[in-house]
């Protein structure tokens, strides 16, 4: 357990940190491998994007209140989403239109060149990138319902 890390917002909106006798006026949490090692390897960066510390397992190594604050900041920084359900897909002239249910609510988006923009990160793990560069993750396609699987199968 790392006990000497304290994080707090000061002024409002700016995350600061003290670690032992050192103080950092700007801190950014970032996942080192957000797709393959979800929830592990958290890096805390300073204002110049230099690593302050690497935390292998933040849930175990950080104090609950520190972890809670960092989670809040991570939630704000990572706007990529996980798809829970594929409601509809249709392909017109090489553009695929998706309507999906995500943890952030319902969303429609368009993808092109699925060969490049649907990336298999593992046998069942898919990352779909839309025309604007937004990332939609399907961590386990086997966990999807049948309708979603059918849409996915006919699309990707």
């Amino acid at each position: 357990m790392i006990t000497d890390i304290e994080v707090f917002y000061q002024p409002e909106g700016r995350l600061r940190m003290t670690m032992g006798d050192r103080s950092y006026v700007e801190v950014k949490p970032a996942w080192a491998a957000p797709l393959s090692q979800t929830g592990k390897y958290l890096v805390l960066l300073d204002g110049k994007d230099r690593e302050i510390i690497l935390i292998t397992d933040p849930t175990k190594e950080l104090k609950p209140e520190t972890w809670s604050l960092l989670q809040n900041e991570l939630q704000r920084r990572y706007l990529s989403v996980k798809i829970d359900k594929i409601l509809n897909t249709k392909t017109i002239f090489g553009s695929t239109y998706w309507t999906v249910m995500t943890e952030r609510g319902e969303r429609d988006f368009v993808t092109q060149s699925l060969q490049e923009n649907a990336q298999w990160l593992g046998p069942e793990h898919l990352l779909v990138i839309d025309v604007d560069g937004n990332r939609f993750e399907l961590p386990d396609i086997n966990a999807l319902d049948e309708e979603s699987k059918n849409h996915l199968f006919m699309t990707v």
Partner: protein
Amino acid sequence: MSQIEAQAEPDSASVLACLEADLTEEGRYGHRKVELTEQDVRVFDSAGTVLLTLPLTDIADARNEPLVSGGRLIVDTKSGEEITVCSYSLRHSTEFSDMARAIEHLAKEGEFLGQPPRAKIRCEKCNELLPEKDGVCPRCLNRGRTMLRIGKFLKPYKKQAILLALGSSFATLINMIPPAIQGRILDNFNLGDKNTQFLFTMVGAWAFTLAIAAVMQIVNGRMNTYLGSHIASDLRKETYAAIERLHLAYFDRKPVGAIASRVTQDTDRVWFFLVDGVPFFLVHGLMLIAVTVILFKINWLLALAILTPIPLVALISMWAWKPISNLFFRVSQKMARVHMHLNESLMGIRVVKAFAKEDDEYNKFQIRSEELRQAHTRADRTWYTAYGMMTFCVAMGTAVHWTVGGWMLYTGKLTFGNFYIIHAYLGMVYGPLQWFAQVNNWFSRAMAGAERIFEILDMTPEPQAGSGKVIEVKGDVSFDGVRFGYDKSNPVINGVSFDVKAGEMIGLVGHSGAGKSTTINLVSRFYEPDLGRILIDGIDYRDLDLHSYRQQIGIVLQDPFLFHGTIAENISYGKPGATMEEIMVAAKAANAHNFIVAKVDGYDTVVGERGARLSGGEKQRISIARAILHNPRILILDEATSSVDVETEKEIQEAIQRLVSGRTTFAIAHRLSTLRKADRLIVMERGKIVEQGTHEELMNQKGVFHDLVQTQSAVNEIIGIGSK
């Protein structure tokens, strides 16, 4: 929320700019409206309730903070608070970057920069998302107009196209004659007429028809090939020329493979449709009509009976085609993955062997191969099911003919000859019918391909020759408040200003990502500033003829690119028609002559794809010789000596000294000591200039450059110790 007061109703200050964000404060998808007025910045929720009001007088600065898959608009208040105005996905980040600038400018200068451009993201007609902002909606695309535009590629070959259409129609009609002749022969025999003269006359006519059909097939085939090859070539040439003239920013966004596929696959789809799809549809459509007319003429009742399964065949065909084409698309994707793995592992075979990873690579290949097998099996299974059903329906047509037609034959309501003719024509109708649904698929693919081609043809190209002033560049270069970002929401050069006199050598220094390479990209006019100006001899370079300007720029890159060809061809790339003497003078000045002549084929040595048959140092010296022969007024050296050994570096440095003499030079070098000879160094950090001066001045200043040199010296020392 000390500075923020939630209000029920906004006051009546006039709205200057307004944008919509797509994330709520909790990070869920939703609507937020951000308004910039003369007095404040306001955020509204979807119900129109004001969530936030920030008086402009309290705002110190505003910025777009890029996040993963989105961004947030942040305002720093004068009291030191950092306030998140709203968050948004990448769909809106560029607009909000402009909004941040507008807010900051209005708060600081009291001047409104103008409404940030709001890109059209949905089709106005069907409200569907647009694949590209401000682009065309594929759903509402006018296929007819696209068809007409595709048809224009036929214009130069109008005569041949008409002849082909007529020839194909004629061949269709000719092919309908033999069954009629055979029917007449059978009828004649059935009537008890044993006149062999009639038989031979009919057979003669049949043979003549066959001969004409064969001639037509040859003529049509040749015409088809002529048209196909010419249209394909025209399409490819036009697409390639358009791609070449596009701004470099386009190439940053699109992978090379995707661009190449427009020149190959998309053009293929269009000409395939024009040359195979359209004639198929015309010929078989014509045949279907002609056969139907004949069948009804022979016996309307029988015709009606045997054509009953046709709608069924058409339905199955339409129902099955979409999933089948999806499944085969999947097969092609899996095949591409197998190819990609094969290419990668074979090209990297040395690495694979060096790490003893043969088994791992084999396992990966096996998985991909298995995926391909599964995709193939599923596609083929579905295909054979649909095909079997269609074959059954076709057979049903024949069965109906034998049942109804047979009964009519037995009862004397149909002659044997007519029974035979109908039987022969049935194959002509049902055969192509199975493929009619495919025409729709061809059509869709061709339209998609055509749209992608037209998208490129319609893009604004770089200014072409003759579109600006042609000047003989002296070499004065000035940056005047230049701001630029590859992604406009995230500037990598921010407010950069400096002046360089003709003939000066400038060293650009800074950590990676400081903006050095972007600066030289801007000097080369691969990109143009988003804000500010770049002046060449006092003239905004956007007013200069791009072609003529680029001809006066020379570039030596870290990883020099050589084209597949001989050494001499590569050296003379910038000056086609250069004499052998000129080439050799340039090679000597570049310290390349000696290693070139030591090769078996000397200057005729073929360098291989991307110069693969030469070492890094050799390629670099050839690229310097190329720049020397090109004789540019402005020279750019981008890490020109970073990838070679010390001995070669010495030779390259000598060559570079000869090259830079008398030219305005911008140099980036990893080893800071190599910039000692620069007249001036510009030190950059995070897109801004932080120091300027000579090597000595900057060392005495003990600032950023001094620290960089110290760090590098320490590293060199460590390497030195390590090597002892």
